[in-house]
């Protein structure tokens, strides 16, 4: 057992004078841990003796709060349904149009196109993997589902970015906005995503739109954070130099801060996309189609084979999207290097 040995002073060149040895009680390491724990245990036992082991809270406000939220959402649904119907309509049209295009393109062209992008942005290995994996998805009979999922993801990501960039800019420019936004973003990201599904159904009905709504709420925080970060980390020297020539705030944002934040924003897009992919199966719970629906159906019918195939197809999409967007972000980053080689 380690008996507390005095810390060795040798080899320490004139450090601050060490604290004088304390007088009175001298606790070693074990005593310092054991004594407080013992104290707590005693306190718990005493408290349990006084109040009993299943002490009630004096009031229960959980019910009323939940009721209030339920009522509010119901009221919103009833009174503002025209707004949500319009949103749902626009989103749905966009989605169906995109899906139709993806399915209309003959699969060899689609596979070739994705392969080409992967080759240009990443490497020929990635191109080869992408093409083989996509062809495998097709042979597994999952091509239409995969295209539907892709369309869902694209719509969700586009909406996320449209929301994230303005909010990110606001958060970068104002510490107040940033401080207000931060807990919301933390909450959105950590809240179990199932929680969003119920209000999503109430506002948008069953189908792809509530799934997109839930996906956006879950996936938008990193895009906001990284947009804000990208703008904030533009070196003050560059900002100052730009300002010294009489830039307006608008010029500074559009010509200096946003262009220089692009790698960071791209990293945000990458993360948002990955998180959206993670929501594919959850979205199927409220009626979203695509690979998520396939996986969910397989689960309900106890078909582990089909579930596995669907899951693997989602993984394939995720890998391709991740590698390509990461390479893109990296390329932009390289272009922004300020130091000479």
């Amino acid at each position, binding site marked *: 057992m380690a008996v507390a040995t005095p810390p060795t002073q040798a080899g320490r060149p004139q450090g601050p004078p060490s604290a004088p040895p304390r007088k009175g009680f001298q606790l070693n390491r074990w005593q310092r841990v054991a004594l407080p724990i013992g104290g707590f245990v005693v306190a718990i036992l005493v408290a349990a003796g006084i109040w009993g082991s299943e002490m009630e809270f004096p009031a229960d406000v959980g019910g009323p709060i939940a009721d209030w939220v339920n009522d509010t959402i119901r009221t919103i649904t009833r009174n503002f349904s025209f707004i949500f119907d319009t949103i749902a309509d626009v989103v749905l049209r966009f989605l169906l149009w995109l899906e139709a295009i993806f399915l209309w393109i003959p699969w060899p062209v689609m596979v070739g196109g994705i392969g080409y992008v992967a080759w240009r942005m990443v490497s020929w290995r990635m191109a080869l993997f992408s093409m083989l994996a996509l062809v495998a998805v097709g042979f597994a009979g999952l091509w239409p589902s995969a295209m539907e999922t892709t369309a869902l993801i694209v719509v969700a990501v586009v909406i996320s970015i449209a929301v994230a960039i303005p909010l990110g800019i606001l958060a970068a420019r104002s510490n107040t906005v940033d401080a207000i936004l931060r807990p919301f973003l933390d909450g959105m990201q950590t809240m179990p995503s199932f929680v969003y599904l119920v209000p999503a159904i109430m506002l948008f009905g069953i189908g792809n739109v509530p799934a997109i709504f839930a996906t956006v709420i879950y996936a938008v925080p990193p895009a906001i954070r990284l947009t804000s970060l990208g703008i904030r980390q533009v070196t003050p*020297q*560059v900002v*100052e*130099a*730009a*300002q*010294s*020539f*009489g*830039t*307006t705030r608008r*010029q500074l944002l559009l*010509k*200096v801060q946003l*262009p*220089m934040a692009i790698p960071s924003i791209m990293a945000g897009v990458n993360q948002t996309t990955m998180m959206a992919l993670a929501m594919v199966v959850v979205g199927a719970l409220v009626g979203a189609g695509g690979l998520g629906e396939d996986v969910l159906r397989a689960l309900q019918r106890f078909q582990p084979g089909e579930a596995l195939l669907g899951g693997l197809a989602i993984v394939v999409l995720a890998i391709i999207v991740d590698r390509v967007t990461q390479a893109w972000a990296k390329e932009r980053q390289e*272009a*922004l*290097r*300020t*130091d*000479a*080689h």
Partner: protein
Amino acid sequence: MNGQSEPLRMSVRNLWKVYGPAAGLDVAERLAGKSKAEVQDELKSVVALRDASFDVSSGETFVVMGLSGSGKSTLVRCLIQLIEPTMGQIFVDGEDVLAYTEEERIEFRRHKTGMVFQYFGLLPHRTVLDNAAWGLEVQGLPESERRARAMEVLEMVGLSGWENYRPSSLSGGMQQRVGLARALASDPEILLLDEPFSALDPLIRRDMQNELLVLQERMRKTIIFITHDLAEAIRVGNRIAIMRDGAIVQIGTPEQIMSNPADEYVADFTRDVRRATVITVGYLMEHPTTRVREDDSPDDAVRAMEAAGADAVFICTGEGRYVGEVTLEEAKQSLRRGDGAIRAPVDRRFAPIQRQQSIEEALANAWDHHGRLPVVDESGLLVGEVERDALIQAAFEAESTEAASV
């Protein structure tokens, strides 16, 4: 050289910048008597700029010199309000720039001033050309026009052929040329150079200093030049302000600083600089004892020399332009020959020393000439004389004080 004859461009009065709780309106009264450390301890505030006042004439290179933390960078930023001063006044061409509205301030920065930064501050995502055109772009000039102008300034700083590269593929010196081109592009009257060459290698730094001097000869801008290097200050500056703890401790020409440092702090800097390269002949020269006009008779010349007890005399034109010198012996011969005017035997044996030459430069041609040397100003007028031995002695003194201080 002559800050007084040119019109006033910039005037700074009692400028303060205080960070922390003491940054109130009565800052001058509260802080005037207190040292930096006292303010820090008692008021939990930092004085970055303490009651700075100076004037800058049009076409002058005004150098602000000090160690890091002396407030020189704060000062130059206050001039275009990249930092808002706590108190004081800044007048540029008679206008109170601190009273400007946001729009006026932007206009002022766009047209009146151009700034160069120690760490370049170039936009990495833009080409060299678009960086140089930055000031014009924010002014809203059409693309073709601003690019043509940017090409011009890039050529001026020696960067033709690099316009389509990104700053990252240029060396530090070249990046700073882009910075200089960017500042010159909108043809501002005032250049603010914040340690422009401090991040460069010593050899490159020297090149850039020379280039700046050549450009300045041509452009005659008003330049505020920040540096921590007195040698650089002396090379580029007409006048130098030395700062310490946010306050200006001395303002003067390079020679005044070198020969009369205001205190030990300034003197410390001057020890690192070779005086013989700084002190000019104008500082050593005396009024010319005797001179005759070229159409005076030899008789006049002989009498003038005998009256002054000299064995030679300078000869000038009617306007006072130096043409040569004649010795007593030669004047007497001329007198014997019966020449009408002294003009004939004029002996142009010595090219006159320029008043603004340094001792070292003057000695380079004066080395084998004995006696008194004529000193002329920029337009060739005889303004004084100096003994060669005085030059040698001054150079020697300078070297020995340097040696003693090492």
